[in-house]
């Protein structure tokens, strides 16, 4: 019977209910999109890093797993580290972001990179033929709607697209190492050294030797690097998500508080009727809390649906720049966050309804 009353109450003022659900759904979408984008960015980064085929990554001192731009290392490191026992291939790459974007352009030494990774799988065209050639991945080609033979603008220069490769290899855009070094005024410099080891069991001995050789350098096995590419391990991301969750909770709390306060005012007489029939304070409070919970569940479902919509829109507009993923593991979390916010928001109007004097409530017009 409680559920029936709550359902009929919600259906009696459908616009109020729908508006509340919509307003609760917006912060849910915000949370899911934010988490989806941060996870998507890191997964995309991990996939591209994994695609290289390296076993060990050597980064410059004072860098984190995410900070890759700049080229402070000399190519000489590649030559030196290639001589370490069990290292079969060594290469270096330079990484530089496009202006005002998270998208990176990777510069590769084609022979050693191909030896390590096995090469790109082209869906259109092929490798660089001329100094102003660039190759791009399928995401970036879709985002910019370009094909082989067309040009793109990068760092105030026009580049001819000579090939489009399957995404998941180092970066969305690739240039020859020397070309990118020249563009960055970093001739002979690289952003990281990548090493391939002869056998998996030799990775740890090589790591030990590298730590001895380069004690101040962040050196990761590929497994370590990829495992660290998670929102929990990236400084600031976790806190940023928590702030958004907090904002989401406050919005949910405010929307439900206002909505249920209005509902209680509108239903003053009905509350009086229920009290005249012998409804306890708890019964009245339960009706308000149950309605708030249903609004929260509706808002969560709507938020989840909206997150799919947001992903679709992002995929149409900027598939390479913002690789959002759907994060089902966050659905129950956002449901709990929304539910807590909504129940807290419904508590004050619920208690004021429960405390209403039945005679005054019955006299309410």
């Amino acid at each position, binding site marked *: 019977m409680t559920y029936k009353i709550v359902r009929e109450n919600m259906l009696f003022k459908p616009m109020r209910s729908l508006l509340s659900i919509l307003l609760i759904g917006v912060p849910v979408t915000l949370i899911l999109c934010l988490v989806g984008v941060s996870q998507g960015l890191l997964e995309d980064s991990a996939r591209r890093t994994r695609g290289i085929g390296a076993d060990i990554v050597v980064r410059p001192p004072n860098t984190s797993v995410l900070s890759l731009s700049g080229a402070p290392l000399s190519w000489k490191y590649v030559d030196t580290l290639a001589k370490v026992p069990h290292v079969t291939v060594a290469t270096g790459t330079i990484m530089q972001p496009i202006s005002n974007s998270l998208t990176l352009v990777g510069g590769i030494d084609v022979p050693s990179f191909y030896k390590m990774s096995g090469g790109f799988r082209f869906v259109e065209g092929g490798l660089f033929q001329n100094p102003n050639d660039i190759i791009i991945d399928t995401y970036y080609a879709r985002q910019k709607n370009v094909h082989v033979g067309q040009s793109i603008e990068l760092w105030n220069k026009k580049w001819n697209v000579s090939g489009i490769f399957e995404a998941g290899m180092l970066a969305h855009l690739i240039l020859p190492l020397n070309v990118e070094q020249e563009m960055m005024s970093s001739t002979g410099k690289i952003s990281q050294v990548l090493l391939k080891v002869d056998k998996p069991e030799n990775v740890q001995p090589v790591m030990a030797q590298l730590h001895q050789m380069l004690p101040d350098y962040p050196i990761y096995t590929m497994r370590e690097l990829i495992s660290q590419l998670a929102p929990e391990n990236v400084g600031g991301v976790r806190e940023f998500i928590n702030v958004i969750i907090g904002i989401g909770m406050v919005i949910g709390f405010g929307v439900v508080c206002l909505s249920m306060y209005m509902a209680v005012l509108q239903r003053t007489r009905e509350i009086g009727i*229920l009290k005249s029939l012998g409804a306890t304070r708890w019964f009245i409070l339960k009706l308000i809390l149950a309605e708030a919970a249903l609004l929260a569940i509706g808002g969560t479902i709507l938020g989840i649906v909206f997150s799919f919509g947001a992903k679709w829109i992002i995929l149409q507009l900027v598939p390479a720049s913002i690789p959002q993923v759907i994060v089902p593991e966050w659905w129950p979390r956002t449901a709990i966050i929304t539910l807590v916010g909504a129940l807290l928001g419904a508590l004050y109007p619920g208690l004021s309804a429960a405390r209403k004097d039945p*005679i005054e409530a019955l006299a309410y017009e």
Partner: protein
Amino acid sequence: MSERPIIAISDLHKIYRVGQVDVPALRGVELDVKPGEFVAIIGPSGSGKSTLFHIIGGLTPPTSGSVRVADQDLSRLSDAGRTALRRNTVSFVFQKFNLLPNLTAADNIAVARHLSGKDHKDDPKFQEALQMLGIAHRLHHKPAALSGGEQQRVAIARAIVTHPAILLADEPTGNLDTQNSQAVLDLLRDLNQRLGQTILMITHNPEAAAYGHSIVHMRDGRIVERT
């Protein structure tokens, strides 16, 4: 009829505080009602009729005096105790029907059954009452789709579904035309005669008051005459 009163009121006072002023609504009411009695209460506006109902029905506590309803001393009842009284012992029928507008007639009745904790029991006596009320075919309509007379019959059904010891009808014909008023009064009399329902009814209409076994006249917060 048993001689032991189901309602026993002695020296009942009720004072409302309006701003900083005390307003006496009842000034020493004395009233006994026996089980199965049908008592009409008449009096001008402000004479204290509704306040008397609110106290007997447990909607508000008395300021002083003794009020015993179905062997419960209302002056000692807590808010929860008065809630339980409304749930199990007394029921109201209001002038404005006071049905829940979102629910069908059947659900309005079901809410009262649910609150009293009797919603899973077969109830042949109530089925008989429903036949008397003549609303069986209108139970799946919401109040807005029912006439005033039908709404008041649903309100009566809701009031008696819990088999209360006392039915308090506060001007039950006040919003009805003559024909529907007659039907509702006939129903109340049938409930009283056939099911032995104790009824107290407030009315301004002397013809309606004549349906009662006795008529209580109130003025200025006191019972001035019982005929």
